[in-house]
């Protein structure tokens, strides 16, 4: 193993992405291959190999960036490495064929900062992305890490810290967008019974389908979260903190544990931090992966060792949180922003973004998009810029249909609003929400009724069952949606869905239930015609709901192009295709179970879906 030595200067730094996405794409094997080849050429004193957190461009993993020079290599395989090391590291000739070629272009782009995906991004929460080894505290310190903490502990009063955060305009990045400075002020001024203890919590219970912002921050830069929490602790007067993270994020748990250990060793956490007399320590609480535990009162119950169920608010955690003491709960990304605000000043931070939403936001881009990955963009950027400039557009030249923001609690935003500048208010006005930052892109082949059904099945499954509107109401809505996608819907169903949605929104106990109907409400608003096509015409316009599809074989195509190849008949499990080899085939509609296999196996395009 070639270990980076802090004292030593290397000619080249090979930054190997070791985020979860690249690790599952075998980036550790790439790293071993690099080490082997570097040794083989005797370059181990000139070249250092550094594992980093998520680079963001997950679509293109495994990723290697060579510094200095910022040369971006992508989709590497172990067999590419001997050539890469010999050509680039030994002979100084970057290897063009391993570089990124943007969609619909022919020329590779060698330099990371020239790649459209990275160009429009502004990094604050992800400021150390790809630049440091998350398991080496000195690399974090080198990039001004713990500088803000030193400043906060040595020269700022709690009031001054809160004032700076308030001035920055930072709002909660977990979804609701509550002003962080105000929350800290409320916790600071709350009176604690039982000896005055107060607590800090980092909410890392990221559960939206397709969202991985918090996971990535915890994996890539755990110290930024720890530093934010220490600053917050000084501001509100807390002595203990908890990082609540899902057990299904093993790499995040491991890296946070390593970071906590190193921070304690360096005197940046624990008793008498940096000799300032301030005591604060953090422990990890692993969650079992229940979506509802992202809700703050359920999260508190879970940390206390009780069943992860929410309770009515007020009292808010700021008054009565963990073990009944005032507790400040902020999301991972919020904490990661804090050190930069204290270091560079609230005024600097508030210079970025829109009138009501300051700074940047991290989004995970998933679904029908060319550049799947993690992006950090200034507030006020338009959806069009995110989807087309950064995201590289929709694969296969398909048309954009909608984007789901805010996960299962959010709603969809359509083509008509694609020039919407993104901030907390504009997304809410459009019927969706900022949420924690998941963006699921959908193209013309997506059925919006099916999407609503999918998200509702998620929230229904995750509903803790404590309150009736959420437990029974989401079940009733899901039954209706399932009925519609199976072609058994009635015109009354649309009205009933709307009524149920409004009642659940008004009466559910916690955020999970209150927001669960959002995907249904927004799709009803924007794609009512699709619901009606399912109900009135028993058709799914996108051909996704298979029970509504009619499969037909074009006899001419079947015979002319496929010579009656018989593959469809042999694959049909319900004997619903007539004909034999050399003849034109046909679907026997009364026997067809609409499984769609004939359509999938026909390479001649003879099976049509109507």
């Amino acid at each position, binding site marked *: 193993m070639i270990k980076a030595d802090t004292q030593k200067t*290397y000619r080249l730094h090979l930054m190997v992405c070791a985020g979860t996405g690249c690790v599952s794409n075998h980036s550790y094997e790439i790293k071993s291959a690099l080490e082997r080849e570097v040794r083989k050429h005797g370059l181990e004193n000139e070249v250092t190999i550094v594992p980093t957190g998520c680079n963001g461009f997950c679509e293109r993993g495994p990723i290697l960036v060579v510094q200095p020079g910022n040369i971006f290599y992508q989709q590497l395989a172990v067999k590419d490495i001997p050539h890469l090391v010999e050509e680039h590291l030994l002979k100084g000739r970057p290897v063009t064929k391993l570089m990124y070629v943007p969609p619909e272009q022919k020329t590779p782009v060698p330099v990371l900062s020239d790649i459209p995906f990275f160009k429009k991004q502004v990094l604050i929460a992800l400021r150390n992305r790809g630049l440091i080894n998350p398991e080496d505290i000195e690399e974090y310190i080198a990039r001004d890490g713990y500088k803000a903490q030193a400043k906060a502990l040595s020269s700022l009063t709690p009031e001054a810290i809160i004032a700076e955060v308030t001035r920055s305009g930072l709002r909660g990045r977990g979804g609701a967008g509550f002003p962080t400075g105000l929350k800290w002020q409320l916790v600071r001024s709350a009176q604690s019974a039982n000896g005055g203890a107060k607590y800090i919590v980092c909410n890392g219970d990221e559960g939206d389908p397709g969202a991985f912002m918090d996971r990535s921050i915890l994996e890539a830069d755990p110290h930024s979260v720890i530093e934010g929490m220490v600053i917050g602790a000084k501001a509100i007067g807390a002595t203990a903190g908890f990082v609540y993270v899902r057990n299904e994020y093993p790499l995040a748990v491991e890296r946070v544990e390593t970071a906590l250990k190193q921070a304690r060793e360096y005197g940046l956490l624990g008793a008498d931090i940096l000799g300032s007399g301030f005591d604060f320590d953090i422990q990890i609480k692993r969650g079992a992966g229940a979506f509802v535990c992202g809700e703050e009162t359920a999260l508190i119950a879970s940390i206390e060792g009780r069943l992860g169920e929410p309770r009515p608010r007020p009292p808010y955690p700021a008054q009565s949180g963990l073990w009944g003491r005032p507790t400040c709960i902020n999301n991972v990304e919020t904490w990661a922003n804090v050190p930069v605000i204290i270091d560079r000043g609230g005024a600097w931070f508030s210079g970025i973004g829109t009138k009501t939403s300051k700074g940047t936001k991290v989004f995970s881009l998933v679904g029908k998009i060319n550049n799947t990955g993690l992006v950090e963009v200034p507030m006020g950027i338009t959806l069009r810029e995110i989807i087309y400039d950064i995201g590289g557009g929709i694969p296969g030249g398909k048309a954009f249909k909608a984007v789901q923001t805010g996960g299962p609690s959010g709603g969809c935003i359509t083509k008509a609003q694609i020039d919407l500048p993104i901030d907390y208010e504009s997304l809410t006005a459009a019927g969706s929400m900022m949420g924690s930052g998941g963006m699921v892109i959908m193209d013309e082949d997506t059925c919006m009724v099916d999407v609503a059904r999918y998200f509702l099945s998620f929230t229904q499954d995750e509903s803790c069952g404590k309150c009736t509107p959420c437990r029974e109401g989401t079940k009733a809505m899901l039954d209706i949606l399932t009925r519609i996608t199976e072609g058994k819907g009635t015109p009354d169903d649309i009205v009933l869905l709307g009524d149920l949605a409004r009642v659940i929104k008004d009466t559910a106990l916690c955020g999970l239930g209150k927001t669960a109907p959002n995907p249904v409400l927004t799709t009803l608003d924007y794609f009512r015609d699709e619901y009606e096509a399912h109900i009135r015409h028993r058709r799914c316009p996108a051909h996704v709901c298979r029970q509504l599809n009619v499969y037909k074989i074009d006899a001419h195509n079947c015979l002319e192009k496929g010579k009656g190849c018989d593959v469809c008949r042999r694959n049909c499990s319900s004997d619903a295709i007539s004909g034999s080899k050399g003849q034109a085939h046909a679907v026997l509609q009364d026997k067809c179970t609409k499984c769609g296999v004939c359509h999938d196996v026909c390479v001649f395009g003879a099976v049509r879906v109507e």
Partner: protein
Amino acid sequence: MPKLTIEELAKTRDRARTKLVMREGGEFRAKVNVHMGTCGIAAGARAVMTALIDEVERRSLRDVLLTSSGCAGLCSQEPMMTVEISGQAPVKYVNLNAQKAREILENHVLGGAIVRGYALGIGSEKTDV
């Protein structure tokens, strides 16, 4: 690891920074390219490279990019290196050793004066890094 004070944190930061500056990109004052083909290495290019890395480290240079390339075609005059100062034509040096490389770094790369005694000529093919 003894626990840090605020002053020691600042010292740790300065020490750790020298390693990281190479990763952060930015403008380079100069690019020094050591030709490390089989011929170059056989003639002693490794000693030239090691000397340059040592100088860059000793002087904490943050804007000099050291790179290597293959055979430059003049195998008889290896070890060779090319110095490219931004905005100027590249200069090729021949028949080098560690000491000559250190002189070139000091006089040409940092001082701006071409070391004529070791230079082959001005102008060269460019490499992209």
